[in-house]
């Protein structure tokens, strides 16, 4: 069997102005084919208006083991959520 085509991670921006979102991955020999294939595999039902294809080998990811050091500190900072503060009823909507 031939050597495998590189893996591409595919990101699609939907119609409503939201940011590109990861939808899955696919194999393609080059960037142009990655976009072509992404159109066929991930936008058959008008799911998007823009495609990003990124070589999977270029993606830098946090390691599962780093979960604690990276994300635990946020747990102790609940005051970042607006619901942390009680606003008196009389003040009305804020």
């Amino acid at each position: 069997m031939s050597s495998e085509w590189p893996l591409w991670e595919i990101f699609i921006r939907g119609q409503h102005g939201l940011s590109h979102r990861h939808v899955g991955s696919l194999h393609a020999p080059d960037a142009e084919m990655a976009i072509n294939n992404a159109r066929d595999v991930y936008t058959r039902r008008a799911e998007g208006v823009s495609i990003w294809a990124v070589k999977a080998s270029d993606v830098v990811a946090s390691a599962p083991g780093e979960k604690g050091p990276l994300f635990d500190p946020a747990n102790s900072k609940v005051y970042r959520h607006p619901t942390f503060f009680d606003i008196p009823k009389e003040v009305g909507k804020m």
Partner: protein
Amino acid sequence: MYAQEVKSTGKGVKSLDEMDPQERAFQERIDADIKIEPKEWMPDGYRKTLIRQISQHAHSEIVGQLPEGNWITRAPTLDRKAILLAKVQDEAGHGLYLYCAAETLGVSRDQMTEDLLSGKAKYSSIFNYPTLTWADIGAIGWLVDGAAIMNQVPIQRCSFGPYSRAMIRVCKEESFHQRQGYDIMIKLANGTNAQKEMAQDALNRWWHPSLMMFGPPDDQSVHSAQSMAWKIKMNTNDELRQKFVDETVPQAEYLGLTVPDPDLKWNEERGHYDFGELDWNEFYEVIKGNGPCNRERLEARQRAWTDGAWFREGLVAHAEKRASRVAAE
């Protein structure tokens, strides 16, 4: 189902107390419905079982294109042809979502392709039956895709993130498949006598194989307990089969067709339909490679791979040439 006989560890399910701390923490996350992601630690058996299950599922989607592909050029109208083309293209897409999900577990696409082409990997028994008439396309959409939906909807909640996400995409598209099939059946069932007979004949041939899609009865399904503990299988085979019968019989009645089972009867007490025994010898023979179309299906996949080699090579040559030009600039 699309993965009917997935071998697991072959051992009994361990209790939490029998597990080492790492495995115990893993099982506790699964019990708490926390998704497992590819880079995280997982027991070897979990990884291997999932690779088998997801790749079988993917192979089924890919081979599943063949029985229906048989009718694309002979669809009765241009509309039906365009719809069937779109449906078959969806199946290819479903196969690709699933192959990618399996690859996150460390198996390569080439390895999976090789295993399918060599006959080592399994795919669903249902795709080894022939599509003899146009009504078979209706019956496949209605029954086969109907059964697939019944199985795949719960797998959306499975414990492995990439598999669950692939299933969510698949399920979004699957309802179109079932409805287009039922639409064909409605048309035929309300057509001429010959058309109605054709619809009945398709139901006669596809009913039992469709029920077998859910896999062997629970008492013969040795690997289910472990897969259910790992939440990569959410319901037992018999549960889903019963659910399918209960939902499908009224749909057949609406069509004015007769389900080919003399033992089929509503059981008021159970609140379910009773139905006759299935021929499990036939099932195991088809799984082993001795169904009506096993050889033809595998040959078609092998031919597609060989005949497409020049094209794949051409794409690589083009990509390399362009990359070297960019490098030279």
